[in-house]
Protein backbone atom coordinates (compact mmCIF):
# COMPACT_ATOMS: atom_id res chain seq x y z
CA UNK A 1 0.00 0.00 0.00
CA UNK A 2 1.95 2.97 -1.22
CA UNK A 3 0.94 6.56 -0.76
CA UNK A 4 -2.12 7.87 -2.45
CA UNK A 5 -0.44 10.25 -4.87
CA UNK A 6 2.82 8.59 -6.00
CA UNK A 7 1.36 7.01 -9.12
CA UNK A 8 0.97 10.27 -10.99
CA UNK A 9 4.41 11.61 -10.10
CA UNK A 10 7.28 11.86 -12.60
CA UNK A 11 9.82 8.98 -12.57
CA UNK A 12 12.49 10.94 -10.69
CA UNK A 13 10.21 11.46 -7.71
CA UNK A 14 8.98 7.88 -7.79
CA UNK A 15 12.61 6.72 -7.64
CA UNK A 16 13.13 9.02 -4.66
CA UNK A 17 10.11 7.50 -2.94
CA UNK A 18 11.43 3.97 -3.55
CA UNK A 19 14.81 4.94 -2.09
CA UNK A 20 13.38 6.33 1.14
CA UNK A 21 11.10 3.27 1.41
CA UNK A 22 14.16 1.01 1.22
CA UNK A 23 15.92 3.20 3.79
CA UNK A 24 12.88 2.90 6.07
CA UNK A 25 12.91 -0.89 5.74
CA UNK A 26 16.61 -0.98 6.69
CA UNK A 27 16.05 1.21 9.75
CA UNK A 28 13.09 -0.88 10.89
CA UNK A 29 15.29 -3.99 10.67
CA UNK A 30 18.01 -2.17 12.65
CA UNK A 31 15.40 -1.44 15.34
CA UNK A 32 14.65 -5.12 15.96
CA UNK A 33 18.14 -6.47 15.18
CA UNK A 34 19.13 -7.08 18.84
CA UNK A 35 16.24 -9.52 19.29
CA UNK A 36 17.41 -11.52 16.29
CA UNK A 37 20.91 -11.77 17.73
CA UNK A 38 19.92 -12.64 21.28
CA UNK A 39 17.40 -15.34 20.37
CA UNK A 40 19.72 -17.72 18.43
CA UNK A 41 22.54 -17.02 20.87
CA UNK A 42 20.49 -18.35 23.77
CA UNK A 43 20.36 -21.76 22.04
CA UNK A 44 24.11 -21.87 21.36
CA UNK A 45 26.14 -24.95 22.26
CA UNK A 46 29.31 -22.94 22.98
CA UNK A 47 30.23 -21.24 26.22
CA UNK A 48 31.46 -18.04 24.56
CA UNK A 49 29.49 -15.65 22.40
CA UNK A 50 30.01 -16.92 18.86
CA UNK A 51 27.49 -15.74 16.37
CA UNK A 52 25.87 -17.39 14.53
CA UNK A 53 26.12 -20.41 16.85
CA UNK A 54 27.79 -23.49 15.39
CA UNK A 55 25.43 -25.89 17.11
CA UNK A 56 22.28 -25.86 19.16
CA UNK A 57 21.47 -26.76 22.75
CA UNK A 58 19.17 -25.78 25.58
CA UNK A 59 21.95 -25.90 28.17
CA UNK A 60 21.74 -22.17 28.96
CA UNK A 61 18.07 -22.47 29.83
CA UNK A 62 18.93 -25.46 32.03
CA UNK A 63 21.67 -23.41 33.75
CA UNK A 64 19.14 -20.64 34.23
CA UNK A 65 16.63 -22.92 35.92
CA UNK A 66 19.37 -24.53 38.03
CA UNK A 67 20.54 -21.18 39.45
CA UNK A 68 18.09 -19.97 42.13
CA UNK A 69 19.36 -16.37 42.05
CA UNK A 70 17.67 -15.80 38.66
CA UNK A 71 14.35 -17.01 40.02
CA UNK A 72 14.79 -14.86 43.13
CA UNK A 73 15.57 -11.79 40.99
CA UNK A 74 12.44 -12.40 38.93
CA UNK A 75 10.34 -12.61 42.11
CA UNK A 76 11.98 -9.41 43.37
CA UNK A 77 11.19 -7.61 40.11
CA UNK A 78 7.54 -8.60 40.42
CA UNK A 79 7.44 -7.75 44.15
CA UNK A 80 8.61 -4.23 43.22
CA UNK A 81 6.86 -3.88 39.84
CA UNK A 82 3.32 -4.76 40.89
CA UNK A 83 3.05 -2.38 43.89
CA UNK A 84 4.77 0.27 41.74
CA UNK A 85 2.06 -0.10 39.08
CA UNK A 86 -0.75 0.09 41.67
CA UNK A 87 0.68 3.12 43.51
CA UNK A 88 1.40 4.89 40.20
CA UNK A 89 -2.18 4.27 39.09
CA UNK A 90 -3.59 5.80 42.30
CA UNK A 91 -1.33 8.88 42.42
CA UNK A 92 -1.22 9.40 38.65
CA UNK A 93 -5.01 9.29 38.31
CA UNK A 94 -5.54 11.64 41.26
CA UNK A 95 -3.07 14.15 39.84
CA UNK A 96 -4.54 13.92 36.33
CA UNK A 97 -8.10 14.48 37.62
CA UNK A 98 -6.98 17.41 39.77
CA UNK A 99 -5.12 19.09 36.90
CA UNK A 100 -7.80 18.48 34.27
CA UNK A 101 -10.85 19.28 36.41
CA UNK A 102 -9.58 21.37 39.32
CA UNK A 103 -9.44 24.60 37.35
CA UNK A 104 -5.96 25.49 38.65
CA UNK A 105 -4.40 28.62 37.21
CA UNK A 106 -0.97 26.95 37.45
CA UNK A 107 -2.08 23.70 35.79
CA UNK A 108 0.85 23.88 33.36
CA UNK A 109 3.39 24.20 36.17
CA UNK A 110 1.82 21.32 38.12
CA UNK A 111 1.89 19.07 35.04
CA UNK A 112 5.51 19.97 34.39
CA UNK A 113 6.48 19.05 37.97
CA UNK A 114 4.53 15.76 37.91
CA UNK A 115 6.06 14.73 34.55
CA UNK A 116 9.60 15.91 35.36
CA UNK A 117 10.79 12.68 37.10
CA UNK A 118 10.31 10.82 33.82
CA UNK A 119 12.45 13.30 31.92
CA UNK A 120 15.31 14.01 34.32
CA UNK A 121 18.26 11.60 34.57
CA UNK A 122 17.48 8.76 36.97
CA UNK A 123 20.98 8.96 38.42
CA UNK A 124 20.12 12.31 40.06
CA UNK A 125 16.99 10.84 41.65
CA UNK A 126 19.00 7.78 42.72
CA UNK A 127 21.68 9.71 44.58
CA UNK A 128 18.96 11.92 46.09
CA UNK A 129 16.85 9.01 47.31
CA UNK A 130 19.77 6.97 48.68
CA UNK A 131 20.47 9.14 51.77
CA UNK A 132 16.72 9.63 52.36
CA UNK A 133 16.10 5.87 52.34
CA UNK A 134 19.10 5.44 54.62
CA UNK A 135 17.52 7.89 57.09
CA UNK A 136 14.14 6.17 56.86
CA UNK A 137 15.93 2.85 57.40
CA UNK A 138 14.38 1.48 54.21
CA UNK A 139 17.54 0.98 52.17
CA UNK A 140 17.63 -2.44 50.53
CA UNK A 141 13.95 -3.09 51.16
CA UNK A 142 11.24 -3.66 48.59
CA UNK A 143 9.64 -0.40 49.79
CA UNK A 144 12.67 1.71 48.84
CA UNK A 145 12.76 0.49 45.24
CA UNK A 146 8.96 0.62 45.00
CA UNK A 147 8.91 4.27 46.09
CA UNK A 148 11.72 5.14 43.66
CA UNK A 149 9.99 3.40 40.77
CA UNK A 150 6.64 4.96 41.65
CA UNK A 151 8.21 8.42 41.30
CA UNK A 152 8.97 7.62 37.64
CA UNK A 153 5.75 5.60 37.19
CA UNK A 154 3.32 8.36 38.22
CA UNK A 155 4.07 10.52 35.13
CA UNK A 156 3.19 7.63 32.80
CA UNK A 157 -0.26 7.16 34.36
CA UNK A 158 -0.69 10.93 34.57
CA UNK A 159 -0.07 11.23 30.82
CA UNK A 160 -2.37 8.37 29.73
CA UNK A 161 -5.20 9.47 32.06
CA UNK A 162 -4.82 13.13 31.02
CA UNK A 163 -5.12 12.01 27.38
CA UNK A 164 -8.25 9.99 28.22
CA UNK A 165 -9.79 12.92 30.11
CA UNK A 166 -9.10 15.28 27.21
CA UNK A 167 -11.20 13.06 24.94
CA UNK A 168 -14.23 13.24 27.22
CA UNK A 169 -16.50 16.12 28.01
CA UNK A 170 -16.74 17.51 31.51
CA UNK A 171 -20.47 18.23 30.96
CA UNK A 172 -21.39 14.58 31.62
CA UNK A 173 -19.96 14.87 35.13
CA UNK A 174 -21.57 18.25 35.66
CA UNK A 175 -24.91 16.76 34.60
CA UNK A 176 -24.51 13.95 37.13
CA UNK A 177 -23.71 16.42 39.87
CA UNK A 178 -26.56 18.74 38.89
CA UNK A 179 -28.83 15.71 39.22
CA UNK A 180 -27.65 15.37 42.80
CA UNK A 181 -24.78 12.85 42.63
CA UNK A 182 -22.09 13.35 45.27
CA UNK A 183 -18.52 13.81 43.97
CA UNK A 184 -17.44 10.26 44.83
CA UNK A 185 -20.52 8.73 43.17
CA UNK A 186 -19.99 10.96 40.11
CA UNK A 187 -16.43 9.73 39.90
CA UNK A 188 -17.40 6.07 40.24
CA UNK A 189 -20.27 5.96 37.78
CA UNK A 190 -19.38 8.69 35.25
CA UNK A 191 -15.69 9.63 35.29
CA UNK A 192 -14.11 6.29 36.09
CA UNK A 193 -15.65 4.30 33.20
CA UNK A 194 -14.35 6.87 30.70
CA UNK A 195 -10.76 6.87 31.98
CA UNK A 196 -10.48 3.22 33.01
CA UNK A 197 -8.53 2.23 29.89
CA UNK A 198 -6.13 5.13 30.38
CA UNK A 199 -5.51 4.06 33.98
CA UNK A 200 -4.88 0.43 33.01
CA UNK A 201 -2.52 1.26 30.14
CA UNK A 202 -0.66 3.76 32.31
CA UNK A 203 -0.34 1.07 34.99
CA UNK A 204 1.08 -1.43 32.50
CA UNK A 205 3.58 1.19 31.29
CA UNK A 206 4.61 1.89 34.90
CA UNK A 207 5.00 -1.86 35.50
CA UNK A 208 7.10 -2.29 32.35
CA UNK A 209 9.28 0.69 33.31
CA UNK A 210 9.85 -0.71 36.80
CA UNK A 211 10.73 -4.15 35.41
CA UNK A 212 13.34 -2.57 33.09
CA UNK A 213 14.76 0.07 35.47
CA UNK A 214 18.41 -0.30 36.46
CA UNK A 215 19.79 2.89 38.05
CA UNK A 216 17.41 3.16 41.03
CA UNK A 217 17.70 -0.60 41.53
CA UNK A 218 21.51 -0.28 41.73
CA UNK A 219 21.27 2.26 44.55
CA UNK A 220 18.14 1.21 46.42
CA UNK A 221 17.96 -2.60 46.33
CA UNK A 222 20.12 -4.88 48.43
CA UNK A 223 21.52 -8.37 48.03
CA UNK A 224 18.16 -9.94 48.89
CA UNK A 225 15.99 -7.58 46.84
CA UNK A 226 18.03 -7.09 43.67
CA UNK A 227 15.91 -7.01 40.54
CA UNK A 228 16.36 -8.85 37.25
CA UNK A 229 18.02 -5.92 35.40
CA UNK A 230 20.45 -5.51 38.30
CA UNK A 231 21.38 -9.20 38.28
CA UNK A 232 21.82 -9.15 34.48
CA UNK A 233 23.98 -6.05 34.93
CA UNK A 234 26.18 -7.66 37.58
CA UNK A 235 26.57 -10.81 35.51
CA UNK A 236 27.42 -8.79 32.41
CA UNK A 237 30.22 -6.94 34.16
CA UNK A 238 31.76 -10.25 35.25
CA UNK A 239 31.55 -12.48 32.22
CA UNK A 240 29.52 -12.66 29.05
CA UNK A 241 27.80 -16.03 28.84
CA UNK A 242 24.81 -17.09 26.76
CA UNK A 243 22.89 -17.48 30.05
CA UNK A 244 22.18 -13.76 29.76
CA UNK A 245 20.87 -14.36 26.24
CA UNK A 246 18.51 -16.99 27.65
CA UNK A 247 17.27 -14.54 30.30
CA UNK A 248 16.96 -11.84 27.64
CA UNK A 249 14.85 -14.12 25.46
CA UNK A 250 12.49 -14.92 28.32
CA UNK A 251 12.21 -11.25 29.31
CA UNK A 252 11.53 -10.38 25.67
CA UNK A 253 8.73 -12.97 25.46
CA UNK A 254 7.23 -11.58 28.66
CA UNK A 255 7.36 -8.04 27.21
CA UNK A 256 5.70 -9.23 23.99
CA UNK A 257 2.84 -10.70 26.03
CA UNK A 258 2.41 -7.35 27.85
CA UNK A 259 2.44 -5.56 24.49
CA UNK A 260 -0.23 -7.83 23.04
CA UNK A 261 -2.37 -7.21 26.15
CA UNK A 262 -2.01 -3.44 25.68
CA UNK A 263 -2.85 -3.71 21.96
CA UNK A 264 -5.93 -5.81 22.73
CA UNK A 265 -7.14 -3.36 25.40
CA UNK A 266 -6.61 -0.43 23.04
CA UNK A 267 -8.39 -1.97 20.06
CA UNK A 268 -11.27 -3.09 22.28
CA UNK A 269 -11.62 0.37 23.77
CA UNK A 270 -11.60 2.12 20.38
CA UNK A 271 -14.25 -0.33 19.18
CA UNK A 272 -16.45 0.16 22.25
CA UNK A 273 -16.25 3.92 22.45
CA UNK A 274 -15.27 4.73 18.88
CA UNK A 275 -17.91 7.41 18.65
CA UNK A 276 -16.12 9.37 21.35
CA UNK A 277 -12.91 9.76 19.41
CA UNK A 278 -12.27 12.33 16.79
Amino acid at each position, binding site marked *: *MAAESTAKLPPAFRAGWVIICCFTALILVYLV*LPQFIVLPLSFSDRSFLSFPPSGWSTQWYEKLVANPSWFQAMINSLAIGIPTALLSMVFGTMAALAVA*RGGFKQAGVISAIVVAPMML*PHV*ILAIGLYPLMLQLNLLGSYAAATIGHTVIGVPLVFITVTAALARHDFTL*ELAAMTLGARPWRTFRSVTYPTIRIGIIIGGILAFATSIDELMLALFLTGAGTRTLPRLIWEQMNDYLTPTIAAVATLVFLFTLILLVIVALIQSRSTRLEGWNHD
Partner: protein
Amino acid sequence: MASDKSTGWTATAFYRWLLVAPLAFVGLFFLWPILNVILRSFTDPSLGVANYERVFGGGPYLKVLWITVETAGIVTILCALIAYPVAYVISRVRGSMMSLMMAFVVVSLWTSVVIRSYAWMVVFQRKGVLNQFLVAADIVERPISFLPGTLAVNVGMVHIMLPFMLLPMLATMRTIDRTLISAAEVMGANPFVAFRKVFFPLSLPGLGAGSALVFMMSLGFFITPALLGGPRHMMAAVLIEQQANRLLDWGLASALSTVLLLLTTSIYLVYLRVMKSAGGGFAHGR
Protein backbone atom coordinates in the same frame (compact mmCIF):
# COMPACT_ATOMS: atom_id res chain seq x y z
CA MET B 1 -13.03 26.43 32.56
CA ALA B 2 -15.73 29.03 32.83
CA SER B 3 -18.45 26.42 33.30
CA ASP B 4 -17.04 25.38 36.69
CA LYS B 5 -18.14 28.53 38.43
CA SER B 6 -21.78 28.24 37.42
CA THR B 7 -22.20 24.87 39.12
CA GLY B 8 -20.79 25.99 42.44
CA TRP B 9 -17.46 25.10 43.94
CA THR B 10 -18.13 21.52 45.11
CA ALA B 11 -17.03 19.69 41.94
CA THR B 12 -13.93 21.79 41.39
CA ALA B 13 -13.01 21.73 45.06
CA PHE B 14 -13.38 17.95 45.16
CA TYR B 15 -10.95 17.61 42.25
CA ARG B 16 -8.57 20.16 43.78
CA TRP B 17 -8.29 18.10 46.96
CA LEU B 18 -7.20 15.10 44.91
CA LEU B 19 -3.90 16.86 44.24
CA VAL B 20 -2.82 16.72 47.90
CA ALA B 21 -1.67 13.10 48.03
CA PRO B 22 0.24 12.94 44.71
CA LEU B 23 1.85 16.31 45.33
CA ALA B 24 2.95 15.23 48.83
CA PHE B 25 4.44 12.06 47.32
CA VAL B 26 6.24 13.92 44.53
CA GLY B 27 7.40 16.57 47.00
CA LEU B 28 8.78 14.10 49.52
CA PHE B 29 10.35 11.58 47.16
CA PHE B 30 11.29 13.73 44.16
CA LEU B 31 11.63 17.47 44.93
CA TRP B 32 13.07 17.03 48.44
CA PRO B 33 15.79 14.50 47.45
CA ILE B 34 16.81 16.64 44.49
CA LEU B 35 16.97 19.75 46.68
CA ASN B 36 19.23 17.79 49.02
CA VAL B 37 21.52 16.81 46.16
CA ILE B 38 21.92 20.50 45.29
CA LEU B 39 22.54 21.42 48.97
CA ARG B 40 25.03 18.61 49.40
CA SER B 41 27.06 19.80 46.43
CA PHE B 42 27.84 22.98 48.43
CA THR B 43 28.29 21.39 51.87
CA ASP B 44 30.02 18.02 51.45
CA PRO B 45 32.77 17.75 52.67
CA SER B 46 32.86 21.45 53.68
CA LEU B 47 30.84 24.58 53.00
CA GLY B 48 31.79 26.28 49.74
CA VAL B 49 32.16 25.76 46.04
CA ALA B 50 35.15 23.41 46.25
CA ASN B 51 33.26 20.63 44.44
CA TYR B 52 32.48 22.92 41.52
CA GLU B 53 36.10 24.03 41.36
CA ARG B 54 37.02 20.38 40.97
CA VAL B 55 34.39 19.89 38.23
CA PHE B 56 35.23 23.01 36.25
CA GLY B 57 38.90 23.28 37.10
CA GLY B 58 39.89 21.48 33.92
CA GLY B 59 41.00 17.88 33.99
CA PRO B 60 38.96 14.72 33.67
CA TYR B 61 35.57 15.87 35.04
CA LEU B 62 35.15 18.78 32.65
CA LYS B 63 36.11 16.46 29.82
CA VAL B 64 33.41 13.98 30.85
CA LEU B 65 30.82 16.78 30.81
CA TRP B 66 32.00 17.84 27.37
CA ILE B 67 31.85 14.25 26.04
CA THR B 68 28.33 13.98 27.51
CA VAL B 69 27.05 17.08 25.71
CA GLU B 70 28.91 16.14 22.51
CA THR B 71 27.54 12.60 22.49
CA ALA B 72 24.00 13.79 23.23
CA GLY B 73 24.33 16.26 20.34
CA ILE B 74 25.65 13.67 17.89
CA VAL B 75 22.97 11.16 18.89
CA THR B 76 20.24 13.80 18.51
CA ILE B 77 21.44 14.84 15.04
CA LEU B 78 21.80 11.22 13.87
CA CYS B 79 18.35 10.36 15.22
CA ALA B 80 16.79 13.39 13.52
CA LEU B 81 18.43 12.59 10.15
CA ILE B 82 17.43 8.93 10.30
CA ALA B 83 13.97 9.36 11.81
CA TYR B 84 12.71 12.10 9.50
CA PRO B 85 12.48 10.04 6.27
CA VAL B 86 11.26 7.01 8.23
CA ALA B 87 8.50 9.02 9.92
CA TYR B 88 7.63 10.52 6.53
CA VAL B 89 7.17 7.06 4.99
CA ILE B 90 5.19 5.73 7.98
CA SER B 91 2.94 8.81 7.93
CA ARG B 92 2.14 8.23 4.24
CA VAL B 93 1.35 4.50 4.23
CA ARG B 94 -2.02 3.25 5.40
CA GLY B 95 -3.70 0.23 6.95
CA SER B 96 -1.91 -3.00 7.77
CA MET B 97 1.42 -1.75 6.34
CA MET B 98 1.41 1.09 8.83
CA SER B 99 0.52 -1.26 11.69
CA LEU B 100 3.42 -3.52 10.72
CA MET B 101 5.89 -0.61 10.62
CA MET B 102 4.64 0.71 13.96
CA ALA B 103 5.02 -2.79 15.43
CA PHE B 104 8.77 -2.66 14.71
CA VAL B 105 9.04 0.69 16.48
CA VAL B 106 6.96 -0.35 19.48
CA VAL B 107 8.69 -3.74 19.92
CA SER B 108 12.04 -1.96 19.90
CA LEU B 109 10.83 0.64 22.39
CA TRP B 110 9.59 -2.05 24.76
CA THR B 111 12.68 -4.24 24.72
CA SER B 112 14.77 -3.89 27.87
CA VAL B 113 17.57 -1.34 27.46
CA VAL B 114 20.00 -3.56 29.35
CA ILE B 115 19.28 -6.41 26.96
CA ARG B 116 19.63 -4.22 23.87
CA SER B 117 23.01 -3.00 25.07
CA TYR B 118 24.02 -6.61 25.67
CA ALA B 119 23.10 -7.43 22.06
CA TRP B 120 25.29 -4.57 20.82
CA MET B 121 28.17 -5.97 22.88
CA VAL B 122 27.71 -9.25 21.03
CA VAL B 123 27.78 -7.39 17.71
CA PHE B 124 30.82 -5.24 18.44
CA GLN B 125 33.07 -7.56 20.43
CA ARG B 126 36.36 -8.81 19.02
CA LYS B 127 34.94 -12.10 17.76
CA GLY B 128 31.56 -10.50 17.20
CA VAL B 129 29.19 -10.41 14.27
CA LEU B 130 30.59 -7.24 12.75
CA ASN B 131 34.23 -8.31 12.91
CA GLN B 132 33.43 -11.73 11.43
CA PHE B 133 31.67 -10.01 8.57
CA LEU B 134 34.49 -7.50 8.01
CA VAL B 135 37.16 -10.22 8.00
CA ALA B 136 35.12 -12.54 5.77
CA ALA B 137 34.49 -9.74 3.29
CA ASP B 138 38.22 -8.90 3.25
CA ILE B 139 37.57 -5.32 4.30
CA VAL B 140 40.01 -5.67 7.20
CA GLU B 141 42.74 -8.23 7.82
CA ARG B 142 42.43 -8.57 11.56
CA PRO B 143 39.44 -7.90 13.83
CA ILE B 144 39.12 -4.28 14.94
CA SER B 145 38.55 -3.62 18.63
CA PHE B 146 35.33 -1.62 18.73
CA LEU B 147 34.81 -2.13 22.45
CA PRO B 148 34.99 0.09 24.33
CA GLY B 149 34.56 2.80 21.75
CA THR B 150 32.71 5.77 20.38
CA LEU B 151 31.21 3.97 17.38
CA ALA B 152 29.60 1.30 19.56
CA VAL B 153 28.21 3.93 21.97
CA ASN B 154 26.71 5.94 19.11
CA VAL B 155 25.14 2.94 17.36
CA GLY B 156 23.74 1.64 20.66
CA MET B 157 22.39 5.01 21.79
CA VAL B 158 20.83 5.92 18.44
CA HIS B 159 19.11 2.55 18.54
CA ILE B 160 17.57 3.26 21.95
CA MET B 161 16.67 6.91 21.23
CA LEU B 162 15.26 6.49 17.71
CA PRO B 163 11.67 5.64 18.83
CA PHE B 164 11.62 8.77 21.02
CA MET B 165 12.41 10.84 17.91
CA LEU B 166 10.04 8.92 15.63
CA LEU B 167 6.91 9.11 17.79
CA PRO B 168 6.67 12.94 18.18
CA MET B 169 7.57 13.35 14.49
CA LEU B 170 4.82 10.92 13.48
CA ALA B 171 2.30 12.63 15.75
CA THR B 172 2.98 15.95 13.99
CA MET B 173 3.21 14.57 10.43
CA ARG B 174 -0.12 12.77 10.78
CA THR B 175 -1.89 16.05 11.53
CA ILE B 176 -0.54 17.80 8.41
CA ASP B 177 -3.35 18.38 5.96
CA ARG B 178 -2.40 16.64 2.70
CA THR B 179 -4.66 18.88 0.65
CA LEU B 180 -2.21 21.73 1.36
CA ILE B 181 0.50 19.86 -0.54
CA SER B 182 -1.91 19.01 -3.34
CA ALA B 183 -2.85 22.67 -3.47
CA ALA B 184 0.81 23.68 -3.79
CA GLU B 185 1.26 21.16 -6.60
CA VAL B 186 -1.85 22.36 -8.40
CA MET B 187 -0.46 25.89 -8.18
CA GLY B 188 2.60 24.67 -10.07
CA ALA B 189 5.09 23.68 -7.37
CA ASN B 190 6.93 20.46 -8.13
CA PRO B 191 6.82 17.85 -5.32
CA PHE B 192 10.24 18.86 -3.94
CA VAL B 193 9.24 22.52 -3.73
CA ALA B 194 5.87 21.58 -2.22
CA PHE B 195 7.69 19.49 0.38
CA ARG B 196 10.25 22.19 1.21
CA LYS B 197 7.80 25.11 1.36
CA VAL B 198 4.73 23.44 2.84
CA PHE B 199 5.31 20.03 4.43
CA PHE B 200 8.71 20.63 6.04
CA PRO B 201 7.78 23.85 7.91
CA LEU B 202 4.60 22.20 9.20
CA SER B 203 6.58 19.19 10.46
CA LEU B 204 9.07 21.29 12.45
CA PRO B 205 7.23 21.12 15.82
CA GLY B 206 7.58 17.31 15.76
CA LEU B 207 11.25 17.59 14.88
CA GLY B 208 11.74 20.09 17.69
CA ALA B 209 9.91 18.04 20.32
CA GLY B 210 11.69 14.84 19.30
CA SER B 211 15.11 16.50 19.30
CA ALA B 212 14.59 18.06 22.74
CA LEU B 213 13.36 14.73 24.13
CA VAL B 214 16.28 12.74 22.69
CA PHE B 215 18.88 15.32 23.73
CA MET B 216 17.48 15.44 27.26
CA MET B 217 17.38 11.67 27.66
CA SER B 218 20.83 11.23 26.10
CA LEU B 219 22.40 13.65 28.61
CA GLY B 220 21.50 11.36 31.50
CA PHE B 221 22.10 8.08 29.74
CA PHE B 222 23.83 5.40 31.74
CA ILE B 223 23.56 1.81 30.55
CA THR B 224 24.88 2.03 26.99
CA PRO B 225 27.90 4.28 27.68
CA ALA B 226 28.73 2.26 30.81
CA LEU B 227 28.76 -1.02 28.88
CA LEU B 228 30.07 0.06 25.48
CA GLY B 229 31.96 3.28 26.23
CA GLY B 230 34.59 2.36 28.79
CA PRO B 231 36.78 4.93 30.57
CA ARG B 232 37.72 6.85 27.42
CA HIS B 233 34.12 7.55 26.45
CA MET B 234 32.73 8.18 29.92
CA MET B 235 29.47 10.09 30.22
CA ALA B 236 28.18 12.12 33.18
CA ALA B 237 25.71 9.53 34.55
CA VAL B 238 28.41 6.84 34.52
CA LEU B 239 30.83 9.11 36.35
CA ILE B 240 28.20 10.10 38.94
CA GLU B 241 27.34 6.46 39.62
CA GLN B 242 31.02 5.62 39.96
CA GLN B 243 31.76 8.53 42.32
CA ALA B 244 28.75 7.87 44.56
CA ASN B 245 28.42 4.09 44.51
CA ARG B 246 32.04 2.98 44.35
CA LEU B 247 34.31 5.87 45.36
CA LEU B 248 31.84 7.32 47.88
CA ASP B 249 32.72 10.90 46.87
CA TRP B 250 29.19 12.21 47.39
CA GLY B 251 30.17 15.87 47.25
CA LEU B 252 31.59 15.56 43.75
CA ALA B 253 28.74 13.29 42.64
CA SER B 254 26.24 15.88 43.91
CA ALA B 255 28.01 18.75 42.11
CA LEU B 256 28.09 16.77 38.85
CA SER B 257 24.41 15.90 39.32
CA THR B 258 23.53 19.54 39.88
CA VAL B 259 25.28 20.52 36.63
CA LEU B 260 23.50 17.69 34.80
CA LEU B 261 20.21 18.73 36.40
CA LEU B 262 20.65 22.34 35.22
CA LEU B 263 21.44 21.19 31.68
CA THR B 264 18.49 18.80 31.54
CA THR B 265 16.04 21.23 33.13
CA SER B 266 16.87 23.93 30.62
CA ILE B 267 16.24 21.48 27.76
CA TYR B 268 13.03 20.33 29.53
CA LEU B 269 11.77 23.93 29.59
CA VAL B 270 12.50 24.25 25.85
CA TYR B 271 10.68 20.96 25.30
CA LEU B 272 7.62 22.15 27.25
CA ARG B 273 7.53 25.33 25.14
CA VAL B 274 7.83 23.36 21.88
CA MET B 275 5.09 20.98 22.99
CA LYS B 276 2.85 23.89 23.94
CA SER B 277 3.25 25.50 20.52
CA ALA B 278 2.72 22.13 18.85
CA GLY B 279 -0.42 21.71 20.97
CA GLY B 280 0.34 18.06 21.44
CA GLY B 281 0.48 17.70 25.20
CA PHE B 282 2.38 14.72 26.55
CA ALA B 283 0.43 11.98 24.83
CA HIS B 284 3.28 10.22 23.07
CA GLY B 285 3.36 6.95 24.97
CA ARG B 286 6.47 5.78 26.72
